[in-house]
């Protein structure tokens, strides 16, 4: 202690710093309680009680006045967070009824077409919670829709961050954390839709097992250890379950906390709106403006998910039936966020490297693990790659408009094109049926497009961005043509006053 210690008989209470505080502090009136609502007879004393024991009010006060930029693109990350909350709530409800049990049972229940069918206890419990539990199917479908929305929101949020350069110093690490969150979310999605043990998800697990088995030299061991033996195993459902409901959500919650902490410390970036500089943040304070808007946005997100879950059927596992290793659903597609991986595995040529009778690189290894690994690694460490290429290591708090960095926008478009082509290839059987094109031809086309597409997208985006950049710096041309005004008698007369026309049309120039 640096301050004076209490003298014998001195019954005052001391802060660590040694500043005396009267013991009866709770009763003291003062202006140092700057909390809105301090006037209320309950809130005031409660806040004071807390502050006298934690000193948190100073932080709370500054927190309530923290400024949040007001732009719709800042909502994308929030929607991801809101979806995650819905996932936690609906997911918890589902665990009350789901049985993570791979052992075989005979189904007897209200769904007549499967009555008497052999299936895992897990699949049977999914049927039970879908057909016999009040709100069970709603929760299950809402959970699935929320998962789709969660990943879509993360991807669009990352896209916004990428295109506006928000990941630049000092926020490189938060990009890395955000991208890690995407990976965790993808893992949540894959483990989650494998849990019902239906025909479609079981086939997916079979493919995952084969891809793991293709890891050079160690593959068969790793696959066997992860799945608890040779596919299919009864152990896998309970293992996926604990990963899905404990390990991954724990990691997500931890990393989301760090992600938000970083946003808090580093403050938000902002667009180049009037008054915005590198040294300020313009927007709404957290309380009450931003807080109420966010709460409202959360409830509206929940409303959309509830509507989707109630009205739009998703993953009707009873139609696919239970998993049996000798049957497969046709056509078979995973959820969209895995579709690109499926496309990669579909379009890969059947090459594998064999030396002296040993398969060094089994076929699924490169499309199943190496290519996704490379694509994701590049995006994962993108802030450092861009800083290395441009040499720009300054701090940036003002965002670029996407066209202000044509090179970056073009690269983003190229990446998006790769994933889009792969996603379409992942649905090649469905597309072939729609377009009446042989699936082989479609695959050949996508094999070309996965290389040509990103090149085309890069060039087109680069040129568009350059054009916008150059056009945007020119003064806005006056409107062409003539302006007419309807007069009192119903006829039209020409208006010659240019300024009046522009004013009437809402300010200068074409929009």
């Amino acid at each position, binding site marked *: 202690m640096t301050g004076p210690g209490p003298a014998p008989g001195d019954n005052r209470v001391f802060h660590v710093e040694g500043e005396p505080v009267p013991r009866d502090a709770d009763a003291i009136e003062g202006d140092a309680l700057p909390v809105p609502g301090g006037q209320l007879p309950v809130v005031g004393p409660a806040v004071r009680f807390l502050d006298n024991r934690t000193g948190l009010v100073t932080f709370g006060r500054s927190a309530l006045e923290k400024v949040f930029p007001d732009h719709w693109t800042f909502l994308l990350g929030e929607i991801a967070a809101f979806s995650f909350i819905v996932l936690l709530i609906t997911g918890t409800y589902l665990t009350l009824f789901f049985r993570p049990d791979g052992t075989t049972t005979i189904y007897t229940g209200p769904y007549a077409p499967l009555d008497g069918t052999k299936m895992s206890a897990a699949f049977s419990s999914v049927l039970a919670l879908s057909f016999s539990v009040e709100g069970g199917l709603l929760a299950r479908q809402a959970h699935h829709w929320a998962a789709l929305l969660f990943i879509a929101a993360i991807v669009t949020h990352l896209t916004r961050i990428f295109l506006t350069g928000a990941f630049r110093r000092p926020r490189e690490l938060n990009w890395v954390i955000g991208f890690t969150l995407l990976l965790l979310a993808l893992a949540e999605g894959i483990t989650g839709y494998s849990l019902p043990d239906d025909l479609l998800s079981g086939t997916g697990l079979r493919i995952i097992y084969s891809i793991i088995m293709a890891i050079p030299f160690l593959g068969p061991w790793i696959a066997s250890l992860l799945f608890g033996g040779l596919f*299919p195993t009864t152990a896998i459902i309970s293992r996926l379950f604990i990963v899905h409901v404990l390990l991954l959500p724990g990691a997500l919650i931890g990393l989301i906390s760090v992600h938000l902490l970083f946003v808090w410390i580093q403050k938000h970036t902002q667009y180049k709106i009037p008054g915005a500089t590198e040294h300020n943040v313009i*927007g709404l304070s957290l309380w009450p403006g931003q807080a109420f808007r966010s709460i409202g946005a959360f409830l*509206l997100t929940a409303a959309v998910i509830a509507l989707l879950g109630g009205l739009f059927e998703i993953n009707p596992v009873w139609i696919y039936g239970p998993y049996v290793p000798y049957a497969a*659903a046709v056509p078979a597609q995973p959820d969209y966020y895995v579709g690109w991986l499926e496309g990669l595995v579909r379009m890969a040529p059947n090459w594998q490297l064999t030396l002296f009778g040993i398969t060094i690189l089994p076929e699924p290894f490169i499309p199943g693990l190496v290519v996704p690994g490379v694509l994701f690694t590049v995006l994962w460490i993108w802030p450092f790659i861009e800083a290395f290429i441009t040499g720009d290591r300054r701090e940036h708090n003002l965002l670029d408009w996407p066209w202000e960095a044509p090179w970056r926008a073009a690269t983003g478009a190229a990446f998006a094109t790769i994933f889009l082509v792969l996603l379409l290839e992942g649905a090649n059987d469905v597309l072939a049926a729609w377009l009446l094109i042989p699936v082989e031809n479609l695959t050949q086309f996508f094999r070309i497009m996965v290389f040509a597409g990103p090149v085309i997208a890069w060039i087109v985006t680069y040129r568009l961005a350059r054009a916008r950049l150059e056009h945007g710096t020119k003064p806005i041309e006056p409107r062409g043509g003539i302006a007419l005004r309807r007069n009192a008698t119903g006829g039209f007369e020409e208006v010659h006053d240019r300024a009046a026309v522009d004013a009437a049309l809402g300010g200068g120039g074409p929009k």
Partner: protein
Amino acid sequence: MTAGMERDPDRAYGGPRTVRPTTTTERRAEVFVGLLFIATILAALGLIVSYIIGANTQVDGVLLAVAFAGLGGAIVVWVQYLMHTPTMIEARHPIQPNPAADVSPGQVAMREAESGFTRRRMLIGMLFASVGGLVTAIAVPLFSLGPLPGRALFVTKWKKGSRVVDVNGNLVHASQIPINGIMTVFPEGAPGDAMSQTVLLNVGPGLLQLPADRASWAPQGFVAYSKLCTHAGCPVGLFRATEHDLMCPCHQSTFDVLDGAQVTFGPAPRPLPQLPIQLQPDGTFVALGGFPEPVGPAFWNQTSGGGA
């Protein structure tokens, strides 16, 4: 106000504000917010009723959506039209390390040296060795997660003399499979076995072009291949009779049934292994042996081993 906060001079707030009369817009907003709250209350009551009378998923979903949307919409409208939330400007302080805390590698190394930590090389080496040993010891039980594959990937339940049965364990008769017919079959005693799943096809006599040493494996146009795709292990269940090819529904690997299941399209790196079968006088089938090579997707030592 906290240090670093400035009020937007154009839209200053705080201090005594004059009470101005409620505008028409605000009145409308108040009514609208009120209606939205009522919608939420009614939807919530509806959900309770729905639970009691046992309504369906669709009704519950709509009611839940209305309840959430009413509350959320009311809050959004309230804050937008009925609350004064001015634009604020917050100063941003440069993020910089604390100059008092020297964390340079040199400084840290010096501290380490001063503490006498780095002097005891031998003990440091042993520290790392013991940590490594402990981590390894904790990791070793990971082998309890599952049996190592051993020879399991090289063998199936098919043996010389295995009788051919269907998924229910019933003996398969040649008469059950017409020309261009297909059936999923298993060795007797293991119906439904994942590794042993086999397709038995009847392509009719005279069309098969199998290698000479397999001529006796496919009696009267009946030919049997492993149903486990050599790409990723999906069941190869789509038989396109006009092209005489088998296609995998997962990734469209295509195998020419007439030509020993050679790969004609897709990512599968090798043909489906063929099961040698014999037609018995009573019209049933037996296997002349197991698959001559491992079935299913590729793994590193696949080709070094033989079949059962």
